[in-house]
């Protein structure tokens, strides 16, 4: 493809504009996180005049009866990792089942899985609140993980099915003739071939657990059970003045996800296109 020089110039210029649009809020977050309070409340400047780490130390070390960043970080990590583990195991088994077997009710099950994508969380929280209350798992990390399964498991199953569909069936047939059990064939032959799929589903469910706000803010009453998004959102209402500290906390929450995204994005895109487009 030959492209004229001026055309290439326009492409690069537009790309730079898009990148600025995409990055500016993140850059502004970083910049504000190093500003002392009086600089936030004056003419906006991109480079802080007197940069300080005070926001970070305050965010991490402050412990009051309603504020404990490190505790929330621990909760978020536990909830996200358990959601990931739970979703990956069920999605890998279920996706394989949907991809390989013919059985009664298969099309119904497929339709149900697709439909779960449409279920609004704000509808689900109403019955879940009552049911979880009866089971005594309201305001517990375990209960929150189960609630996250409602949207993470069906989506991950669908992605995994897409991945299994791309693996030739002949590989397994050879092994099954040998007399190996199906579960064993699945674990030793098929699963290792779908590592990209597992990474995609894992990333998706981890981020779901890390970022989710509606369920967490409805189910988690006591502050010591909060996750990071709730904690940081509560900070904005209470201490509107301290933007430097608030942005420092925001940077700390964002960095792990951005790193995960940048290193694993190829797999996520592969997973979404494989699962979503091939029906």
């Amino acid at each position, binding site marked *: 493809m030959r492209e004229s020089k001026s055309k290439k110039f326009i492409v690069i210029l537009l790309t730079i504009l898009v990148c600025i*649009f995409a990055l500016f809020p993140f850059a*502004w977050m970083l910049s*504000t996180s190093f500003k002392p309070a009086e600089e936030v409340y004056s003419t906006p400047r991109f480079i802080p005049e007197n940069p300080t780490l005070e926001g970070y130390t305050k965010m991490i070390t402050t412990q009051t009866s309603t504020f404990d960043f490190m505790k929330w970080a621990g909760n978020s990590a536990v909830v996200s990792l358990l959601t990931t583990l739970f979703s990956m195991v069920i999605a890998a*088994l279920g996706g394989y089942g949907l991809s390989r077997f013919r059985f009664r009710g298969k099309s119904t099950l497929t339709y149900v899985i697709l439909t*779960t994508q449409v279920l*609004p969380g704000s509808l689900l929280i109403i019955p879940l609140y009552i049911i979880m209350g009866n089971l005594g798992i309201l305001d517990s990390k375990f209960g929150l993980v189960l609630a996250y*399964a409602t949207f993470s498991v069906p989506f991950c199953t669908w992605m995994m099915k897409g991945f299994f569909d791309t693996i030739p069936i002949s590989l397994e047939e050879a092994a099954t003739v040998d007399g190996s059990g199906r579960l064993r064939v699945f674990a030793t032959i098929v699963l290792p071939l779908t590592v990209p799929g597992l990474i995609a589903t894992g990333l998706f469910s981890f981020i779901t657990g890390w970022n989710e706000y509606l369920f967490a803010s409805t189910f988690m009453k006591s502050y010591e059970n909060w996750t990071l998004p709730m904690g940081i959102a509560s900070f904005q209402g209470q201490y509107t003045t301290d933007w430097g500290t608030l942005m420092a906390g925001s940077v700390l929450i*964002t960095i792990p996800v951005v790193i995960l995204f940048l290193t694993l994005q190829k797999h996520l895109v592969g997973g979404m296109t494989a699962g979503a487009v091939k029906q």
Partner: protein
Amino acid sequence: MKTKWKKKMEPYLFLAPLLIVIIVFLLIPIIKAAIMSFQYYYIAKPSADGNYFVGLENYTKVLSDEYFYNSVKVTALYILVTVLGRYLIGFGTAMLLNTKFLGRGLARALVIIPWAIPEVVACLVWILMYDQDYGVINYLLNHAGILSRNIAYLQDPGIALPAAMAVNIWKGFPFVAVMLLAGMQSVSSELYEAADIDGASGWQKMRYITIPSIKPVSSIVFLLLIIWTIKDYAIAYVLAKGGPSRATEILTIYVQQTGFRYFDFGKAAAAGMLMLLISLVFTYGYFKLLNRGEAVH
């Protein structure tokens, strides 16, 4: 005999955990919500008769509530503008990133950052940037001569909704860009080479090669955007709490607030069921459209 039975049960061995999750965490709650929508379930004022059945009362309450209609209108507008906005900017970005130039890899990595930022955190930064007195957006627009006064973006009922839409579009366009780019890259370069030999213009190549080739990805992206936006909650809520004057109260916020702020679980369940109905009708229509499109090709 035994092995035959074992073979027959095999699919269910793999599917059992999935089925349990779907039944316990999705079907039972949905059935429960459907039942609740016909019951007296006003938590703030529990009745001595328990949660007795009230017929269609919860539904009539919702359907005679002007705020319900307001939230339907706000949701429709919110979906229309943000889905189109994300799609168009995402498509443009994918076209740019599909061209070869120095630094393209870096640009691709940078562009996806809004997608990676947690919603709540993204909203907090935008609240700061939207600030009337010290926000950088007012500062820049005033200096560029576009504005002559400071705007209170999130406190002005006429501006809060577009302001929330802007955040949604900013956060969501990278997803579209990345998905469409993946679709564009799977188009064989021979097609473009052949078009070059025939002397096709850039516009013609886009119209007759790129757009038809990415149609399957495009359709799915559109569908996902719409159903994700119907369920969207955090952006409108954290930015403006549904306000000011309910200007940003999308359906999800209406349902959640009816339940957990006014404690009328029956009415909230009824509103939620109506919301589900709207999205199901929509999804069904969309699937139909998709199938028809496939039949033509």
